[in-house]
């Protein structure tokens, strides 16, 4: 069925007029009708708008405007954290109840310009804070491989939707692993681009210096296609790199002879599930057989990354979320004076994890604590970044597990925030350093059958290397062709 194809595949068939964009979208909508009642990846879906976009894509193709438009007519879902003009923007939170965005995020503009059918708003942890999508104010999303388990977070809905063939791709956001971790747990490809490569204008901010938008896809090549469409300098984002949209297609071929891959010794921790470890080890051997040279490297400050992250990210978040106060938009609970209104609105509108992080972030910035926490964390961040840059002098990319375990059961970690934070132990350092990272499937646990992800980390602007390595591995294996059992 059209919804189960890769973008490259569907694009080819659209090009050959084997199928129309409308038919392809309809296949996705049918699939959503079939499984989303149980999967709960979608928070909302404007079918009429989506169909209109599909029709427009078909019209463009009929007019002959399809050259160099690989995304024309391709249905792509959006995490509920991206602004789309005229659509609700909720971040899976009660506090944005009723808010309709009057503008498009830059990535949405770019996808629309590329002719993609940008549809649906998929579930996430509230304000991107979480690793399981259990922090959504609108219920959790299931893992397509086992609905009693979590799909990861915070972009759990995006990963689940792609893995369950509800769309051809989805956009998510990654601040400490929120694309890569759900991609690993759901068995698809997830990319966090180099910081600054994709515009953040229209991405609701969680941690400004860490957030990046990236694609979920079913193949490595697809991820490169989406990245090409959404990347490039944006004058509306001061942190946007002065680079044009990045085209990695040329890099996606061949074996890995001449490529040096590093295995950071500090990522070999106690808590890794044995099945994850053996899957990753097997993947490393596979990479070696493809011609890569494997070296051990050291990233000495790895153990401090989670602590550093939870100071910096929550500090920035505490300020970024201050605007949700009931004055200009969203939920309002009245009070006798503005202060009372703010406190009541925010007390009622934010979920527990968001409140915890706002409190932590406010605390680490507060008078008397700034130097000991925030300033210190920013210095440790320098050390972590330096670790990576030094490693990249020796190797072209790093290879690690994406997560220490496969998907855990829903409810298992909700009452233990610290435990939940440690899920991101392998993904967080990448965001702190601003480098690029990708996760792709590298195996399954035996019983139950749950996906395992391999993470590849590259230097700033090193996406071509990521794709080359990932693609070679992917083509030499068949993990990416596996589909979850959800019917």
């Amino acid at each position, binding site marked *: 069925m059209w919804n189960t194809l890769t973008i490259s595949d569907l694009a080819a068939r659209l090009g050959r007029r084997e199928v129309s964009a409308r038919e392809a979208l309809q296949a996705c909508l049918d699939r959503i009708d079939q499984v989303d009642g149980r999967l709960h990846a979608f928070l909302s879906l404007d079918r009429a708008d989506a169909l209109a976009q599909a029709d427009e894509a078909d019209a463009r193709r009929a007019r002959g405007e399809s050259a160099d438009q690989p995304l024309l007519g391709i249905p792509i879902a959006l995490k509920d954290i*991206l*602004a789309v003009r005229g659509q609700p*923007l909720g*971040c899976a939170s009660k506090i*944005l109840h009723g*808010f309709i*965005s*009057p*503008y498009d*995020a830059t990535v949405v503009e770019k996808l629309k310009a590329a002719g993609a059918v940008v549809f649906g708003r998929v579930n996430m942890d509230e304000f991107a804070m979480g690793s399981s999508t259990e922090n959504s104010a609108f219920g959790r999303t299931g893992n397509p491989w086992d609905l009693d388990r979590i799909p990861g977070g915070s972009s759990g809905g995006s990963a689940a939707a792609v893995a369950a063939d509800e769309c051809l791709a989805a956009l998510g956001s990654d601040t400490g692993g929120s694309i890569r971790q759900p991609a690993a747990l759901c068995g698809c490809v997830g990319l966090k681009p180099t910081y600054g490569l994709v515009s*953040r*204008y*229209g*991405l*609701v*901010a969680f*941690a*400004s*210096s860490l957030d990046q938008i990236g694609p979920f896809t079913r193949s490595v090549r697809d991820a490169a296609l989406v990245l090409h469409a959404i990347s490039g300098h944006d*004058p*509306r*984002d*001061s*942190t946007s790199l002065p680079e044009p949209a990045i085209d990695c297609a040329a890099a996606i071929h061949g074996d890995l002879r001449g490529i040096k891959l590093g295995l950071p010794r500090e990522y070999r921790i106690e808590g890794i599930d044995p099945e994850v470890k053996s899957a990753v080890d097997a993947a490393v051997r596979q990479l070696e057989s493809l011609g890569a040279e494997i070296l051990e490297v050291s990233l000495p400050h790895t153990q401090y990354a989670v602590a550093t992250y939870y100071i910096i990210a929550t*500090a*920035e978040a*505490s*300020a970024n979320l*201050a*605007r*949700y*106060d009931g*004055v*200009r*938009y969203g939920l309002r609970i009245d009070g006798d004076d*503005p*202060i009372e209104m*703010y406190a009541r609105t925010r007390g009622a509108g934010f979920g527990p994890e968001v409140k915890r992080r706002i409190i932590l972030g*406010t605390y680490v*910035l*507060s*008078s008397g604590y*700034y130097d000991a926490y*925030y300033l210190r964390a920013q210095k440790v961040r320098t050390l972590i970044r330096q670790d990576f840059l030094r490693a990249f002098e020796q190797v072209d990319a790093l290879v690690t597990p994406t997560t220490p375990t496969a998907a855990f059961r829903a409810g298992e970690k909700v009452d233990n925030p610290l435990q939940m934070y440690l899920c991101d132990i392998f993904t967080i350092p990448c965001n702190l350093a601003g480098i690029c990272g990708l996760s792709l499937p590298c195996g399954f646990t035996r019983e139950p059958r749950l996906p395992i992800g391999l993470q590849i980390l590259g230097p700033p602007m090193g996406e071509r290397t990521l794709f080359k390595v990932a693609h070679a591995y992917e083509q030499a294996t068949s993990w990416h062709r596996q589909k979850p059992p959800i019917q």
Partner: protein
Amino acid sequence: MEYEVVIGLETHVQLRTRSKMWCGCANEFGAPPNANVCPVCLGLPGVLPVANEEALRLTVLTGFLLHCAVPELAKFDRKNYFYPDMPKNYQITQYDRPSTANGWVEFETGGGRARVRIARAHLEEDVGKNFHYDRYSGVDFNRAGVPLLEIVTEPDLRSAEMVYDYLNALKDILRQGGISDCDMEKGMVRCDVNVSIRPAGASELGRKVEIKNMNSFSGVRKALEYEYARQVEVLCGGGQLAQETRRWDDAAEITESMRTKEQAHDYRYFPEPDLMPFAPTDAWLGEVQARVIELPLARKERLMRQYGLPAADAETLAGDAALGAFFEGIAPRAKQPRILANWVINNLRARLAETSTSIQAVKFPPAAMLELLELVDTGRISGRIAQEVFAEMFATGDAPEHIVARKGLVQVSDAAALEPLCDAAIAAHPRTVADYRAGKTAALNFLKGQVMKLSHGKANPNLVGEMLQRKLQ
């Protein structure tokens, strides 16, 4: 016990840019509520700020005008607090690395000169405007995001009068420098003062009181006079002063303590992650430097020195850039610059004001004034006739010599022509003649005036005076 007052000033000045600091909304006063807003300045979810390069230039330009240093690196920070007029509930400002710092302003006060040190001038964003009703307040975000320059002095000010003079001098510098229109009525300049008192001659500072809500420079002066008296009264009465923020009530003419739930704000400053730092290049600094104007005080002194002008005239010309430029365009060629200045100020400026003409629209070329003054200097026309010629010049743009010739205004200095006129005046006013002969010297002016009338103003007044004197001996 004699108490001296120590005052520091924080002046917020809206910069003269076309658009706001972080977005392209118009920076304009008086628009209908919430007409100049967009997702960025409304603080909608997902938006980002991008710095206005002209605002950065004007900030550094201010630094140059105030003799400040411009550091190699400047950055923005978030100042976190909640208020309805704050779209993001944090203000983007410059905390520890401002664009410019450590300068001074020199100005005239108390009959002499004073210098106030400028601690810093940093760039930040303005907030929205609140309107208060019975049970609600309403917020207009037109002003939110307008670039604001905060100029902070060291506590070098020593009297309300000095503060008033400083503010006026600062306003002149900023207006002439092209930084801001400084229209206080339009809220372009706002002032907070920090005032403390201490025993005269003491070196330690007393408890600082911050005063807000003054809407005019004279309001600032009045508030300071009141506050000084209030603080002295408290201390003399054996009381203690609280370190607090007080509000100036312009109607009641008092300061009153502001009801605040938390006296000290914890602003939790941290570097703004959405904005990159600023490292001005030499080329960029050079461009800004080229926009530095001669400071009004310096220009005044130079005019006095260079052209021998009296202080009042120099001040007038220094304070009016266009008029001053007009004057300086021709002054180097003037035989008597003081007289030229007189004409420019008392005749040209007056006529411009009367007719609501701008100096750019003046019909005669500046050099024509030199011509006119030359005609008087050589005695070709009298001073009084020159007034008439000037009026004609202004109205028609015609050249002075032309006008003189056309209207036959050449001064009559020929004794043969003047004699009969003097005789006629003497004959017509025997009583005045008698008065003069009796010792009333002023009576001669009357007779002189009569001769001028008879000659239609063309008689050379000095010669007439001499002639009459001779005849009446």
